[in-house]
């Protein structure tokens, strides 16, 4: 596997500009001769499909939901970052770049991250032009707030519904292109495989989830914008349909998989309450602007929070990290919560929870102001827990939230399969080992609006039309494989649902590859996996057939893929003998319990290659070099 990131050289500030000038262009009259298949309609896919169609390419867009507007991006609450420096508090492109590199624990590419910070401002301009109703000050200008890992206010937001409003902006642009006939939209359609011919991605095979019909689509380029794989843990903050099968199929066809063990655990989610639980609900990080995190000082203290006097409370984030306080990055906050719970100081029935307390904010600002800022989140919390956060502190606990790992891409967002591009959360992205809050929306839209539309032109101008139609034998071969997989699933006639088996796999993932990892635990999990996979195929039951609307079949296919992908994650976590960002290996920590990075040996991207069934995947390295920032121990003290 050849890993040529193709990052430009020269001064950081001009790299993207120069690269744009050097890339080839497609003549306007030729653009309509090219067909691009975009899988996914979230912030990445929606913005890319609309932008590419606007340029004149023929675009086919596919999504699982009944409408492109319902992609998982819709659920993002808190906000989107940009280096506008509207509050005049010292922000700049450099600072956003620096915070993101540092926040990612120095495991991402300088060139990519700088480009991300650079285009962040254009994203806000674009969204405003579309009519996205961002929050405003009384003077009519845009409002900002703070998020974790930054000391400036650079986060734009639309109440607690930022993702929804940004996605509706992208969806409206997409809808316009559908109306103009430039995009053909295929909702309720699942990509089941990628077609590669002579080393080039030339199309996809999909299943219409309502009728079960399989279809082939040929394209001169394929774009995967299919989101992250957090749901491999079963319980996560992701939507139920979020899955990684599209990327997994691409991996099996030769796309490198980068840093799969880099998973983000979000510190502020509503704790789990029972075995029947189907998902975990995030309470936006923005709450840490005003909420104070604490637990009792004494282990096993079962008093109601109101009965615990101030001096018997431990505001442990403020104590340990005085300069960032409650706004430390997510990995740091999550680990700190785990640590106090491990000490027996956790709160709530299960002991797996910490308080997020608004009493001080309510006193300082008044209940009205707090309601205006966080009303809908408080409402949501009360619906779920039956507790009123205006009166008693919220209980929160970390949960799986986001995956920094994903398919490897070069500077042009192209995977190791020529023609296959990957954007949004699905790629291994710009976030290194840990993503800062409000940066996923920024990256998804940067990729789709302002990076891919340029780099796609370069690919098409360089490679030319693929010349492969769906009657090519390459398509027939892939369809036979897809058919066989569906038949095998439908034939499964055991006793258990894919869902219940998935729950078990999720527990293994969480215990072995969650908030803290050990060589021993990972080896043990790797040893258990084959047996569990066998058990899956033996006990699985898929009711109904492949020729109908069959949710159980869809789920079973995704869970089957998770068993195989789990192995790659375990191997990656085992191979990375350091702690960085979201990847915390117990063996590698400072005496104070902070992550201990090993730049000497692990300043690289780990890229896994599929080399055949029943063979362990092989690992390749893309070395990271830092020319402009010096990796230091991340300190938020």
């Amino acid at each position, binding site marked *: 596997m050849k890993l040529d990131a193709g990052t430009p050289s020269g001064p950081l500030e001009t790299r993207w500009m120069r690269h744009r000038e050097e890339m080839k262009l497609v003549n306007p009259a030729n653009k309509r001769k090219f067909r691009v298949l975009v899988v996914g309609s979230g912030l990445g896919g929606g913005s890319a499909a609309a932008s590419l169609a606007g340029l004149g390419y023929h675009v086919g867009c596919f999504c699982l939901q*009944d409408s492109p507007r*319902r992609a998982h991006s819709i659920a993002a609450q808190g906000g989107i970052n940009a280096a506008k420096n509207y509050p005049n508090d010292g922000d700049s492109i450099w600072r956003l770049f620096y915070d993101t590199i540092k926040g990612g624990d120095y495991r991402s590419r300088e060139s990519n991250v700088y480009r991300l910070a650079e285009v962040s401002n254009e994203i806000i301009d674009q969204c405003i032009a579309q*009519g996205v109703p961002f929050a405003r000050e009384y003077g009519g200008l845009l409002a900002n707030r703070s998020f974790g890992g930054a000391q400036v206010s650079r986060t734009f937001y*639309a109440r607690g519904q930022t993702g929804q409003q940004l996605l509706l902006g992208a969806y409206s642009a997409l*809808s316009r292109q559908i*109306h103009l006939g430039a995009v053909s939209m295929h909702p309720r359609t699942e990509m089941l495989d990628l077609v590669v011919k002579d080393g080039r991605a030339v199309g996809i095979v999909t299943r219409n989830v*309502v009728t079960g019909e399989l279809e082939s689509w040929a394209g001169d380029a394929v774009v995967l914008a299919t989101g992250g794989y957090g749901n491999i843990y079963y319980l996560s903050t992701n939507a139920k349909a979020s899955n990684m099968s599209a990327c997994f199929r691409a991996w099996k066809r030769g796309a490198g998989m980068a840093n799969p063990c880099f998973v983000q655990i979000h510190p502020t989610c509503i704790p789990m309450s029972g075995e029947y639980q189907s998902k975990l609900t995030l309470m936006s990080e923005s709450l840490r602007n005003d909420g104070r995190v604490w637990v009792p000082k004494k282990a096993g203290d079962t008093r109601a929070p109101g009965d615990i006097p101030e001096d018997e409370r431990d505001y442990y984030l403020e104590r340990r990290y005085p300069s960032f306080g409650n706004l430390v990055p997510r990995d740091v906050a999550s680990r700190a919560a785990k640590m106090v719970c491990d000490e027996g100081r956790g709160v709530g029935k299960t002991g797996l929870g910490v308080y997020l307390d608004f009493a001080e904010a309510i006193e300082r600002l008044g209940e009205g102001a707090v309601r205006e800022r966080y009303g809908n989140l408080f409402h949501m919390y009360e619906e779920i827990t039956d507790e009123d956060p205006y009166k008693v502190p919220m209980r929160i606990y970390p949960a799986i939230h986001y995956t920094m790992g994903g398919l490897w891409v070069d500077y042009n967002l192209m995977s190791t399969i020529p023609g296959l591009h990957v954007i949004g959360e699905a790629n291994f992205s710009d976030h290194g080992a840990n993503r800062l809050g409000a940066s996923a929306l920024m990256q998804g839209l940067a990729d789709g609006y302002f990076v891919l539309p340029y780099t796609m032109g370069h690919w098409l101008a360089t490679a030319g039309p693929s010349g492969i139609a769906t009657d090519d034998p390459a398509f027939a071969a892939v369809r036979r494989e897809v058919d066989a997989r569906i038949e095998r699933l439908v034939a499964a006639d055991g006793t258990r649902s894919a869902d219940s088996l998935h729950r078990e796999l999720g527990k293994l993932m969480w215990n072995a590859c969650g908030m803290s990892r050990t060589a021993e635990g990972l080896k043990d999990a790797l040893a258990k996996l084959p047996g569990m996979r066998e058990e899956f195929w033996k006990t699985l039951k898929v009711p109904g057939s492949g020729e109908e*609307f069959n949710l159980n079949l869809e789920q079973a296919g995704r869970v089957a893929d998770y068993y195989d992908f789990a192995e790659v994650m375990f191997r990656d976590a085992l191979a990375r003998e350091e702690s960085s960002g979201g990847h915390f290996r117990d063996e590698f920590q400072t005496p104070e319990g902070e992550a201990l990075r090993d730049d000497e040996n692990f300043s690289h991207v780990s890229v896994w290659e599929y080399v055949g069934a029943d063979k362990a995947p092989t690992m390749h390295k893309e070395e990271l070099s830092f020319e402009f920032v010096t990796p230091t121990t991340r300190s938020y003290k």
Partner: protein
Amino acid sequence: MNITLKIWRQKSAGAKGRFETYSLSDVLEEMSFLEMLDVLNEQLLREGKDPVMFDNDCREGICGTCSLVINGEPHGPERAATVCQLYMRKFENGDTITIEPWRAGAFPVLRDLAVDRGALDRIIQSGGYVSVKTGGTPDANSIPVAKPDAELAMDAASCIGCGACVAACKNASAMLFVAAKVGQLAHLPQGQPERLPRARAMVAAMDVEGFGACSNTYDCEAACPKEISVSFIQELHRDFRKGLLAGR
């Protein structure tokens, strides 16, 4: 607690549907309504029966996918909430709960409780946007918006496109849905150039899709999980008439 469920079962779009009755024990108060249905589906699978198909995704009230009529009410008894935000503590031991899909000519049933809401997407495609391409836009702060207008635009924009308004309306009108999109853009300077033609195009698209006329009974507002105000419908009427007069 123990509950009885009467659920609409329909094999496919063309098939005839009917209610089936199921009983479920050990339902916990902390379960969400959809988690209760998950438990039912596990039970059906063990009994060798077809699980109940229902649409859902985010399970936190924002994607607009879930779409159940519970005891005659779209999204059920909870005010300002989607059915995925409904918890079993709202019900009592021994209750019988009837569950149906959205009922509207423009929303054909696909299977059991899942319907096709593509008509709503087509309404948006007819003009529910500001016609801008990617790039070349002015600096965001060069377009100031008075806070009250921004707030009104945001109120309208919080529509999740679930279609509960249609399911609640005796004419199965999509007026509140259309009014919310038109209203969002009508309250922003960016939406002004296309304001009147947008209102007319979207209302025309709504008619083509087979949604009924506004019944003026405002059941839509009561059913809306995001509490979108019917005042947006009045504004839509005004823009629509202005557009007619102006011939735009």
